[in-house]
Structure formats: C-alpha cells, structure tokens
C-alpha cells in the first residue's frame, strides 16, 4: 500500500465511484457530495505528489497496465482534475434534475479515472483503453440533460477519433514492435509517419471538436447537464489537446517541404484546418442564441488555436498552446459554471429569454466577466499571455493566410463573449426574474477560486510557464526565455505584472476623477431615452434577440454546408448498407455460408501473406 502510487489513486477513485453509486441509491445528495470529496482528493493527490516528484508508478494489482509520470502528463492531469474538482461543487445542486441520480455520481467519477489513466501511462494500449473508458462514461452523462440525440452524434464522432487512434497505434507498432509510446513515436518513419500524423490529428480533432469533426461539440455542450458541460469544455476536450501534442509535435511527417515558409505540407494543411476551425467556431458562436452553445463554439475556436500553435511547433508556439490549454480550461469552466448558476435559477440558457441578471447575481456576473476577458485574450487575464505567444509564433513563421484566421478569431471573440454579457446579464431586468437571489455559497466558492486563478495566470504567469518550459524541453524544442516577471518571445518582451499594475493605476486615476465630481442621480433602468415614447414593458427595451443580425445576414446562407455534407454521406452509407444487406444477409443459409467460406479463406490468405 502506497498512497502516492498512481495505481492506488486510480483504484481508490474507482472504488469510490462504486461507493458513490451505492450511497447515491440511498440518498442522491450524499452521493453527489462523494463526487466532490473524491475529485478534491484526486486533484490534491495528483498536484501534491506529482509536483513533489513522489508519484510511484509501480503496479501491484492491475495487470498489463504500466504507468509513467511525464511532465506533460502531469500538467494535463493537474489541469483537468482541477476543473473536475471545481465543477463537482455544482453536482449537489443539480442532482435533483437528473433521472438516474446515483449513476450520475458514479459516471462522473469514472470519467475522472479514465482521464488519470490516459495522462499517466507510457503504453499505447493502456492509453487507448482508458481513453475509451472516458468516452463511454462521459457518453452516458450527456443524455441526462435535455436530449439523447446529441449522444449518438458524440458517439459517432468519438468512434471516428477512437478508430483513428487505434490505427495510428497499430501503424506505430508495426514499426517499433511494441506499444511503448516514446518508442512508437520515435521509430515511426517514412510514409507511415505521415499517416500516423494524419490519424493522430483526426483523433485529436474528434476530441477537440475541430473542423470537420466539430458537429458534436455544440450539440453535446448545449444539451448535456450544466455541470457536465463545464467538465466537457474545461476537461474532457483537453484529451484531444493531449493527443494533439503527441501527434503534431512529436511526429515529423514527411510529405514535401514548402520552401517559402520552411514548413512541411502536411503540417501546413493541419494548421490551415486549425485556422478554418477558428473562423467557423467564431462565426457560429456569434449567431447562437443559447449561451451554452455559444460557449461551446467558442471552445471549438479555441481548440483551433491550440492546433495552429502545435503545428508550428517551436518553443514559443508549444508553450503558447499549453498555456492556452490551461487558460481556456479555467476560463471556460468558469464561464460555463456562471451560466449554469443562472440556468439553475431560471431554467433556461436562452439569451433571448433572459435579461438583467446582474442585479440579482452580481458575483456570478463578475466571474463571467473575468472569464470572458480571459477567453477574449485581453490583459490582464491568462488568455492574453497564451494568445500573445501564439501570435508571436504565427508572425514569426510568416503565415498570412493562417494569420487571418488567428486574428479574426481573436477579434471575433470580443463579439461573441460580449453577447451573453449584454443580453443575459445586462440590459433590462425582466420582471419574471426580479425576485431571484445570488447563487448559494458553495456554488459561488468554486467560481471565485477559478476567477482568482484566471487573474493569477494573467498577472504572474511565470511560475506556470517555468513548468511548461520543462515540457517544452522534453519535447525537444527550445525553452521560452522567462525571468521572474517578464516573458520574451520572438518579437519582444512583455511584463504581465506591469501591464496589470498599470491597469490598476489607470482605474485608480479614473476612480479619482469619478468621485471628484458631483454625485449622480439614481434612476431606474426603465427611465431611459425612448425618443419621448412611453414604454412600460421591459422586454420591449431589451435588445437580446438576433444580437448581431446585420453580421449574421452576411453568412447565414452558408452555415449548414457541413451538416448537409454529413447528411448526404450518411445517406450514401445507408445505401451501401442496403446493398450489403441485400446480398449478404439474405434468408437463404447457403448464401451466407458461401460468403463466410470466402471471407475465412481470404483471411487465411492474408495471414499467410503477412
């Protein structure tokens, strides 16, 4: 028995998942409280033992499973488990809304187990098994929300990702002869390297929700229960980033080199897809009415940033990507939790039905504000640091076409993050919500912790960047130059603490100006300029429907192209299925036997060829 052993942590978590189920059967609330305790325990154990270098990797009980602690695994594990722990505080408040209360608690913990396994293994098979474990346990969490349809979509897209991952694993094994991750990635070469590169990218894309495998993301994130949404966006999606680091950075595809930018063609294509992902995510986010779907599309576009940065693959780019993983995980978790806190009171996340929530829930509003400042990449929050580094990388590489996507997404994010702010939190206070109160303390607490962390990552990023530098060195790139307070990129130095400090000075000066002059007269929200018209209905003075209508009109004709493509592919597949059914699965047994014989002999022939 060693409590610092990964195996031990895993098994304790697994056992407490079952325990949560049993307790949840007796009392659903208690069961969900177990999720809080367990995820807190895992987080603390991973972070404490991990960063003290005390994690033990030997296995005593689990067969075939091997563990390894890498810097990158530790980084991802601590980020994701932290998000899980913060979100778990919301479980007791939402548990009553689900049909299978005990099951929910169990699956929540099980997804955590899967995550731990993926990040702490050195073996592709273990990785794959735990990967699937996460997919399956999270899959059953989704239908507890609004609809079950999105689950199928998630499953379909995940399957594509899983198969791609599996093929990539087999390809690597065929060259290296073992399932070892480091060996596999190191030894694969030639055309197989390019294929592995592409397959791993597909696996990463499916998990990150990147174009063209993005369709599940908004549906799932929109329909899943509110805490699960936060977990998906802040945690589970990051599995994709983990696979992407493996594939995009550690593999060198060999197609042909584009001379002008000194970049491999396959890499450029992936970067281009990343940039398309950013643009599509941004454009779609701008036109959503459901706040959760809006944030879901923003997750997609942020996934695009990670892909672009990883394909560029030098020190700054990788640290930018990893820092973005962290910054976006915290920020999007905080934003989703804020929306969830509102949704719990109002039972809707549609922005056209909400308004003026700031007067009821000021703390939730501040949390959301801090989160979106980070998501939009504005100083002094964490998102600025990562976006700054990614910009550096793109500019240094000189990629104007990809830069369009990168810049567009960054400015576009101002648009979409502002929409919930204006329509949901600000604006007129709708009468049906006038009586609502701020969320209870235990919901506010995790949100405040997350906000604190967002600010910390924006003001003093250097401790975390130091940790990321270790990963960057592991991956074979040059570390970013950081001093105690400053970060030096390709194009200059920034001093985040100085920026935040000056922002503080500016606000202080502005505040002085503000209080020097006469006090304002308080008026109500309805006492507002209406060109002399008398209006007493709050809804009429609340601008929330079709917020960006003039902009949307420019592209709304084109938005369903992807859905239509997939629909036609589905029809084609169904036709092929009918064809097979007609010829192979008839009622006549002799036909079936004939095909079975043929297939078996083909297989045998193939075996002898191998």
């Amino acid at each position, binding site marked *: 028995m060693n409590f610092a052993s990964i195996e031990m942590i895993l098994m304790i978590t697994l056992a407490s998942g079952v325990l949560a189920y049993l307790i949840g059967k007796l009392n659903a609330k208690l069961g969900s409280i177990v999720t809080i305790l367990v995820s807190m325990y895992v987080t603390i154990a991973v972070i404490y033992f991990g960063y003290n270098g005390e994690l033990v990797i030997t296995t005593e009980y689990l067969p075939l499973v091997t563990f390894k602690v890498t810097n990158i695994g530790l980084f991802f594990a601590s980020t994701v488990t932290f998000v899980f722990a913060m979100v778990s505080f919301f479980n007791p408040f939402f548990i009553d809304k689900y049909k299978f209360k005990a099951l929910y608690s169990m699956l929540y913990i099980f997804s955590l187990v899967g995550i731990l396994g993926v990040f702490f293994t050195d073996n592709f098979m273990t990785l794959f098994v735990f990967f699937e474990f996460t997919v399956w346990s999270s899959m059953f969490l989704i239908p507890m929300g609004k609809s079950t349809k999105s689950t199928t979509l998630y499953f379909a897209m995940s399957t594509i990702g899983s198969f791609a991952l599996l093929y990539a694993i087999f390809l690597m094994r065929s060259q290296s002869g073992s399932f070892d991750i480091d060996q596999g990635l190191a030894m694969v070469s030639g055309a197989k390297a390019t294929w592995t590169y592409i397959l791993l990218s597909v696996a990463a894309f499916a998990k990150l929700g990147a174009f063209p495998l993005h369709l599940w993301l908004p549906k799932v994130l929109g329909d899943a229960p509110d805490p699960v949404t936060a977990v998906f966006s802040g945690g589970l999606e990051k599995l994709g980033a983990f696979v992407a680091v493996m594939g995009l950075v550690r593999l060198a595809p060999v197609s042909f080199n584009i001379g002008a930018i000194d970049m491999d063609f396959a890499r450029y294509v992936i970067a281009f897809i990343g940039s398309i992902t950013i643009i599509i995510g941004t454009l779609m986010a701008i036109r959503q009415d459901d706040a959760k779907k809006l944030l879901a599309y923003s997750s997609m576009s942020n996934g695009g940033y990670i892909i672009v940065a990883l394909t560029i693959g030098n020190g700054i780019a990788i640290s930018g990507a990893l820092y973005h993983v962290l910054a976006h995980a915290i920020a999007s978790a905080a934003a989703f939790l804020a929306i969830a806190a509102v949704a719990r009171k109002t039972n809707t996340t549609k922005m056209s039905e909400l308004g003026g929530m700031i007067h009821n829930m000021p703390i939730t509003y501040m949390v959301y504000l801090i989160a979106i400042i980070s998501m939009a990449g504005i100083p002094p929050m964490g998102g600025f640091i990562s976006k700054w580094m990614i910009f550096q990388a793109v500019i240094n590489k000189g990629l104007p076409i990809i830069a369009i996507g990168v810049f567009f997404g960054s400015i576009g994010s101002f648009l979409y993050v502002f929409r919930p702010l204006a329509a949901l939190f600000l604006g007129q206070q709708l009468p049906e919500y006038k009586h609502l109160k701020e969320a209870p303390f235990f919901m506010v607490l995790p949100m405040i912790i997350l906000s604190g962390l967002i600010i910390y990552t924006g003001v003093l990023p250097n401790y975390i960047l130091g940790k990321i530098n270790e990963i960057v060195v592991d991956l074979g790139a040059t570390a970013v130059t950081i001093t105690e307070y400053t970060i030096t990129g390709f194009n200059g130095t920034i001093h985040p603490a100085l920026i935040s400090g000056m922002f503080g000075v500016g606000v202080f000066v502005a505040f002085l100006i503000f209080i020097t002059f006469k006090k304002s*007269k308080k008026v109500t929200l309805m*006492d507002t*300029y209406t060109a*002399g*018209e*008398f*209006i*007493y*209905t709050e809804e009429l003075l609340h601008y929330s429907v079709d917020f960006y209508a003039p902009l949307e009109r420019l592209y709304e004709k084109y938005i369903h192209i992807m859905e239509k493509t997939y629909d036609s592919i589905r029809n084609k597949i169904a036709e092929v299925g009918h064809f097979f059914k007609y010829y192979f699965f008839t009622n006549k047994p002799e036909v079936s036997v004939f095909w079975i014989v043929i297939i078996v002999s083909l297989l045998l022939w193939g075996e002898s060829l191998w």
Partner: protein
Amino acid sequence: MKSTKFSPMTQEQIDKKWWEIGNYFRRNSLWMLMYCTGCCAIELPPAMTSAYDMERLGMGPMATPRQADVLLVTGYLSLKTLRRLIYTYEQMSEPKYVVGFGSCTINGGIYHDSHAVINKLDQYIPVDVYVAGCMPNTEAVMNGFTDLMGMIKNKTARGWLDYKERNDWYKKNQLDSLGEVLVHDEFHE
C-alpha cells in the same frame, strides 16, 4: 493655527465660486436638443449652417436629452406632444434650460383657439428665453441664444430651479390640461 490675513472661505462661498466657473463652461458650450414640434424649426438649419453658424458660439446639436443642456421647443405643442416634451425635459441632466420659439409657445399664436394645442408653454415647463415672431427671424433666434448665455452669466437662467421649487404648481397645470402626463393605455403597456 488660523491665518490672520486670509479668512478661509465658507463652504457656501466655495460652492459659489465653483458655480461661477461652471457657468463659464456651461454658457460657452450649449448643447441643444431640438424638439421640432412646429414650423419654427425651419429657422434652425440657417442658424446652424454657414449663414449664421451657431457652432462659433459653442452650440451644437445632440442626440438625446441626457446629453443636452438646452431644450428648443420650436413652435406649437399639441397635447400629445406636450406629454412627450415634459417626459423629455425631465430626463435632461441639470442644469437645463428651455428656449421657446415663436408666438405659438408664448400665447398660442395663430392656433390660440385650437382645442388640441396648448397656449402658454411656461405654465407646463419653465421657459428661460422666448424668441418672438411667427416665425422668428434667424437673427432673432441667434439673439435669443446670446441672451440665454447672458442670463447664465448673470445667474438669472433659473428655470430648472424654479421647476424644482414650484413643482406642485407645474404638475397641477400639467394634470389640468393633460389629465395624465405619462399615459398608460393599451398602446403603451
């Protein structure tokens, strides 16, 4: 230790000084809200454009009552518009001034016997300056503006204070004529 030479100003005196300084700024930067109710409004374009150029006095048009300093009531006011005018006037930020244009706002003008039009504007909101005429000359309009500036300088443009002090009287007049200032009917709910 108190200085013997300079007796410190009382709070009132300080306020008065600040008010005078403020008055300098206020009279040199009058932002107008044009409530173009009647035909007198046609005098504003020449006053604003190159013929008379009111911008040289620091005046300019503004979009909403919150931003404006002076409300221009240009001509006759039907009961319906009067409601809106009062609503708009009350939304302006203090200090605020009102200029009434044309004989219509003074005594009803040629519409004095109409059932739908009020006769004396200053019974409903305080008017600082009237510009007489039907319609007034543009020179007269400009003159009215300079008069208003002079009044601000002499601290005689006290209409907005009057509206506060004698609010009951104004409200009573408004109610007598309009019944209800802020209408609640099926069109406005």
